[in-house]
């Protein structure tokens, strides 16, 4: 049983999701109420979008610690622009472009200054967070325009929240890029064995730039959607999102060692972790314990990843 769980990365998440749903519903029937489920779906969608970007980064054996601050920054930009009555399409375009730009900045730090991604994005995280604070003067910006909110939590076909649709589109596009384009395969190659990628003529700086620009863009999208969902924005949006999305990626079955990426697993894990968060809420667990719970989940996921690697090495797991 343990062996088959080790073998299939997504199976474990699915099983866990089912257990979680059953458990929390048993604790409090409100868990499965329409409002709550919709809330989970929207939250999971935003988390999935950012984590899909992080999946690429981790598949390349890098880390982007700035996604949380990018989310906050873009949320603030969107809110501020809307408060000056800029038309929504322009606001959306500007928001996405900011994400792209910040991702590009990360990429330049990594490729020009030859900084490890961990260090570079840690630095940019501080700078971007600082910029958000300056823009808001520490205050919260309210969004009076409800169109953005509708684009996120409004229902499509009367059933599915818009956010889920957006996440689905992002998932499909990312999957196509990852599996069907040379760029996507090069991302995995660089993460798996950079030396082999160089020998094959892969342009590592170019691919790195692409990956971080994608990560920045998706973080920006996530930030904007969060602002829409909350109807306001301040610099605390996205706090902890980088660690959360790394957790989602790892729980979803992508190894931190790089070389592979489990995109469906990421989406499943986003759903799983959002359900757990909501469940803890509904079960009235003090929010102080949340960190403990998610830290524990991350550790378990990393342990499983480690066990898989050892089993592979000992020749007992051929996959």
């Amino acid at each position: 049983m343990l062996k088959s769980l080790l073998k299939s990365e997504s199976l474990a998440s699915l099983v866990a999701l089912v257990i979680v749903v059953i458990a929390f519903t048993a604790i409090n029937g409100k868990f499965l109420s329409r409002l709550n489920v919709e809330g989970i779906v929207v939250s999971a969608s935003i988390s999935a979008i950012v984590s899909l970007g992080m999946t690429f980064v981790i598949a390349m054996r890098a880390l982007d610690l700035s996604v949380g601050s990018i989310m906050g920054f873009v949320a603030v930009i969107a809110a501020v622009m809307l408060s000056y009555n800029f038309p929504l399409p322009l606001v959306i375009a500007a928001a996405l472009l900011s994400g792209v730009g910040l991702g590009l900045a990360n990429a330049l730090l990594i490729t020009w200054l030859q900084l490890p991604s961990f260090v570079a994005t840690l630095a940019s995280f501080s700078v971007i967070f600082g910029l958000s604070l300056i823009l808001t003067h520490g205050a919260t910006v309210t969004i009076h325009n409800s169109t953005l909110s509708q684009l996120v939590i409004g229902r499509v076909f009367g059933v599915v929240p818009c956010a889920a649709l957006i996440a689905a589109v992002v998932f499909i596009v990312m999957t196509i890029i990852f599996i069907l384009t040379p760029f996507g395969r090069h991302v995995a190659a660089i993460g798996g064995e950079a030396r082999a990628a160089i020998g094959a003529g892969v342009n590592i700086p170019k691919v790195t730039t692409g990956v971080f620009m994608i990560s920045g863009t998706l973080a920006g999208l996530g930030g904007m959607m969060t602002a829409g969902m909350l109807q306001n924005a301040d610099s605390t949006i996205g706090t902890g999102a980088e660690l959360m999305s790394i957790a989602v990626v790892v729980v979803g079955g992508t190894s931190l060692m790089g070389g592979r990426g489990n995109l469906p697993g990421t989406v499943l894990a986003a759903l799983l972790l959002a359900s757990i968060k909501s469940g803890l809420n509904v079960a009235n667990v003090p929010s102080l314990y949340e960190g403990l719970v998610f830290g524990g989940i991350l550790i378990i996921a990393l342990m499983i990843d480690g066990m898989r690697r050892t089993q592979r090495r000992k020749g007992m797991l051929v996959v």
Partner: protein
Amino acid sequence: MPDSESIARSDHDVAAKAPCKLRAAGLRKCFGGIEVLHGIDLDLMAGEVHALIGENGAGKSTIINILSGRISPDSGQVELDQRIAKFGNPLAAKRAGVSIIAQELELVPTLSILENVFLGAEPTKFGIIRWGEARKKVAAVLRELGIEAEPSQLTRTLSIADQQLVEIAKAIVGDFRVLIMDEPTSALNLEETSRLFKIISRLKAEGVAILYVSHRLWEVFDIADRVTVLRDGQVVQRSLTKDTNSAYVIQSMLGSKSSLISGGQSKSKRNFVQSGRPVLDVRDLNSGGLLRNISISVKAGEVVGFAGVLGSGRTELCEAIYGLRKVDAGTRILLSDRPVELDEPKTSSRYGIFLLSEDRKQEGIFPHLDLRENVVLPNMLNKSARGKANPTSENNIARTTGFGVVSARDELNIFEAMRRSLNIKCSGWANKVTQLSGGNQQKILFARGRIAKPSLMILSEPTRGVDVGAKEEIYAAIDELAADGTGIIVSSSEIPELLRLCDRIWVLRHGQIVSEVKSAETDEEAILEIMAG
């Protein structure tokens, strides 16, 4: 008049009728202030196999790296089809039609065979990879090479032999006019090698210019049309293979050291007590279906060998003894008549067992450390070795408790002693280990084992990628180690090596021992027959 002119003509102009595909002229290259290539001229003709041989450190890898675009020469030029070619990177060379089979595997373990073969050269339409078409091409090449795996299998699940075959597949799929092969058969068995040679013949007929680099002289004389010998960064011999022989070529390779070649199956007299206690006694070893009913024993001072094709279980057996592989219950392992459980390498090394793995890149050298640290470091962690390694240490606390600081001077003395006895070619203890040639890296690992004064040393493919001169030096070192009383296991794919080194040889097939022979009473042909079954 025509006669004197023809005498003055140098060897390689004999083939001048055929168009010269790739020509290197006056190549020079310095690494860290030392010139390693002193003006090399080399040309590759279409439809011809040109062998390049020489000791490790002679400059072969540097030439290959220049021709394939990985590095640029300090002076001299490369011409492709009579036009000057400046390859700034491997991709440019590939696009120009120069394909290379690297000696060190350059596969991404987490990607499939299909993805690896087409890495960097994916066939696309409107930006989307055409996997269907790619898969067909790969399946065809895999069949030609005799690989039984599916294109969708991850390369990390393949045996080393199959991985090398995939590396070859990578090079021969697609369009190319020049093929550089760097030790392509080091992990292949006879059958796979002959299949590869068939492919080489096909490529020859198609007009590809082939550069073949190998230590295996019998292969060179089998497949090559011309041979160029390199020594210390210079060309010392250029001949048609039919005009020369391996003895002559070895002399050119070694220059003044040619007296080192023992030339035969001579083995130094080995003294070990016939009725002595076995250092290692393995009974009924089974491991996960890969190894079955293995029983062997090694006495102190004895050298035993494991023979068998790749996949016969040799490597797995070495791993099992060293604790890298789980063994099933019912296995009994005794060290000097004491039953032990070797569940992890730490246990084995504490018992005085040392393993020189066949994959020295992944499991041997510490690539970021210098030579001294590579030799000395693992032994510092081993308490018993530390005590033994510092017999003259003034620090008695270090000797008795194993704690304390080890003097740098002692470390350097140890390193120098090993360097002298093994003749490791390097400019000093501070060299980075990755700067050394394959043979010298192997000597470093051997030195590491030696100073640990093991009771049992397991050597897996000890001279893989090692040239003739260094091979003899390593063999002498093994003899010396056995004379000191260490029991030695040699697992190798080269039968002459096993016959040279071992007193007894076990032949494995499909994970079982099929025969035990005394090397004095058998020969290469007989062992090959047993291996083939």
